[in-house]
């Protein structure tokens, strides 16, 4: 057992925290959100300079070759600073799939992902799938040397801004993944904005034609890749939520210590103290589960991994909503204003619960593993 961070991890944390505190102010974030792109090219370039875009990518493929816990440290900081840039989508999920199963040409992209020149998005969710990983209706049919893609993907983070999409589709052999240029013929991308200001897309594939080598990994070999991508996303979101909860707790603490009513700081009231104690408890439980999720990412036993991931995402989702809601309540009127960061954290935490499976989804999945054991 060892809960300490390496020198390197502490260094990543400190430099990222310093950079974000200086440049990623709430006003800057507001401007990025208003732009509708969900990504500031200058911020993205600086993230690349900090070396974090290639953290998931092995050195021999042009990346930094960091560990899962390095990535966790990064995600915590991005959560703390309320970053909406699609780091998880491109550097963790998208890059992770190519590292795992991409062919040589596809893996060449990893250098460009590391440098920030290219972003990649995971186009998997569909109108009827909710969060079920295997519910894929999009089809890819082989025509001569090409694949023809038909179907609709929804709630794709950075789906419009990304240069490439990893698209899941059914073929005769089962679930398969394809690497698709974002701007290919037969592909229509519609940008939508989430309530926290990040950008998602609805993407229609209406006979988009792909070369044979667009396939990622083996035909019919998509399911384990999809699950691995989801696991990485779950671990990343858990860490992001932990960072956001840390920051929100600190904000709330400062507020209840400074806000005076009845002649005293409202933090002197036991009713509020007990609520804050429960917030801290939930945040610490979430941190514990974030560590567990990251630690279990590489476990080969499918059931053990699934159990840990769903346990973590359930609990972190529950904590995220609880801490978010309580923070707004303790801020009173200021909590429901757009002015303070409080409401922005609240919305981000809400969004994290609804990404890659909400509480009910993961409780069901955990329960299935539990009763199968």
């Amino acid at each position, binding site marked *: *057992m*060892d*809960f*300490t*961070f390496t020198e390197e991890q502490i260094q990543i944390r400190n430099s990222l925290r310093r950079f974000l505190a200086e440049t990623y102010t709430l006003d800057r974030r507001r401007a990025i959100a208003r732009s509708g792109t969900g990504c500031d090219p200058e911020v993205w370039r600086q993230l690349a300079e900090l070396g974090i875009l290639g953290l998931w990518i092995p050195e021999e493929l042009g990346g930094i070759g960091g560990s899962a*816990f390095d990535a966790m440290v990064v995600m915590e900081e991005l959560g703390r600073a309320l970053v909406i840039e699609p780091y998880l989508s491109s550097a963790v999920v998208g890059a992770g799939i190519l590292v795992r199963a991409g062919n040589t040409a596809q893996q060449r992209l990893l250098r460009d992902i590391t440098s920030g020149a290219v972003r990649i998005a995971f186009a998997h969710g569909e109108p009827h799938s909710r969060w079920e990983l295997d519910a894929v209706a999009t089809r890819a049919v082989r025509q001569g040397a090409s694949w023809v893609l038909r179907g609709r993907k929804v709630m794709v983070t950075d789906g419009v801004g990304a240069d490439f999409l990893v698209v899941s589709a059914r073929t005769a052999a089962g679930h398969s993944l394809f690497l698709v240029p974002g701007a290919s013929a037969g592909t229509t991308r519609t940008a939508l904005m989430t309530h926290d200001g990040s950008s998602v897309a609805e993407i229609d594939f209406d006979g988009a034609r792909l070369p044979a080598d667009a396939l990622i990994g083996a035909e019919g070999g998509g399911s384990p890749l999809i699950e691995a991508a989801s696991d990485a996303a779950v671990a990343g979101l858990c860490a992001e939520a932990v960072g956001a909860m840390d920051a929100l707790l600190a904000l709330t*603490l400062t507020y*209840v*210590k400074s806000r005076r009513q009845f002649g005293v700081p409202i*933090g*002197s009231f*036991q009713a509020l*103290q*007990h609520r*804050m*104690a*429960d917030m*801290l*408890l939930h945040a*610490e*439980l*979430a*941190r*514990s*589960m974030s*560590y*567990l999720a*990251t*630690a279990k990412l590489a476990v080969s036993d499918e059931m053990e991994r699934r159990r*840990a991931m769903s*346990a973590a995402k*359930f*609990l972190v989702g529950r904590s995220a909503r609880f801490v978010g809601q309580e923070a707004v309540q303790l801020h009173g009127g200021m909590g429901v204003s757009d002015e303070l960061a409080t409401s922005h954290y609240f919305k981000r935490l809400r969004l994290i619960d609804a990404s890659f499976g909400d509480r009910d989804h993961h*409780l*069901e999945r*955990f*329960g299935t593993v*539990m*009763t199968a054991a």
Partner: protein
Amino acid sequence: MDLNFSPEEDRFRNEVRAFVVAELPHAIRDKVLGHKRLDREDYLTWVRILNTRGWVAPSWPRRFGGQEWDPARELIFEEECALAGAPPVLSFGPRMVAPVIMTFGNQAQQEYFLPRILNGEHWWCQGYSEPGAGSDLASLKTRAERRGDAYIVNGQKTWITLAQHANWIFCLVRTSTEGRPQMGISFLLIDMKTPGITVRPIFMLDGEHEINEVWFDEVEVPVANRIGEENKGWTYAKFLLGHERVSNAALGPSKRALRELKAIAAAAPTGSGLPLIEMPRFRDRIAEVEIDLIALEVMALRVIAMDRERHTPGPEASLLKLQGSQIQQTISELAMEALGPYAALHQPQALAPDWNGSVAGPPEGIGITARYLNCRKVSIYAGSNEIQRNIIARHMLGL
């Protein structure tokens, strides 16, 4: 960052498991797992067996007969013992009074008392709470007046766990009424056989006799039985509370209770053809508490690591107590609910070790409702959950 136990710790776990399986008498194990009443001899038998390995108080320093286990080993040990159905080693001696004697007691006290804790000769109970002093412990009124080489103790202590079995009690008593209430308290070790002590049972909501009142009427206690200095008892008591650590998370007992809950729910019919555990509404609730237990375990390991790093226990133990007690209560409540209509039955006769009669309802339901009732205590004792939240707010949040 590594959440796994070391290979050495895994070997240690196997060693403990093998020992408990080989040495725990089946009759005692069956009583524990079957929720039967344990008598004094059951606890002591297990203490004597553990003492053959030096495992009654294994975290003690070696010079006092301990093994200097770190908290991780203690956690593993407690978990294996609980899962195997061993009776708990009560904290009052090894974990509560002993660290106080080691730290603040004199050599004569250490030489006399510590070995008798290990061999089971002394059964300790805790004389803290009074009818008027619960969460506000410092307001205690039991008086000790100095008369020559003795204190004369008068007053009443209450909620004393298993005082009916104990032969020694450690007490906080008032030796001064000057200054702040905390400044006039002394820490006395009292032989329960001393004339003037009366133990009266308090029956709990499950009908069981687990706690007691202890009355002191002109009880003469040698000054030699005072720990440390007069009027410094509050300091020693606070030190003692700092030693109620990771075991407050109750990981072992909760894991055992969860295992039992799943077995009950897997056997419980629902009229639909499916067992209760397959019904989504109930399965979700088991799943949620199991997830909570997973998180609590990781958090407990983190607290152990934090304590190790800074060499002193911190306020995080309050998080473990708060959440650990909530989990215990949730599991006991679900187990009771799993019995369906039979949860309403009260069959205390079936808790007797020699009971051979039949019971109504599922046989695995014996003692389950009683435990639900009994478990309400866990968010009240050892600092109520409201006190724990106060501690968290003050010492972790600075409020």
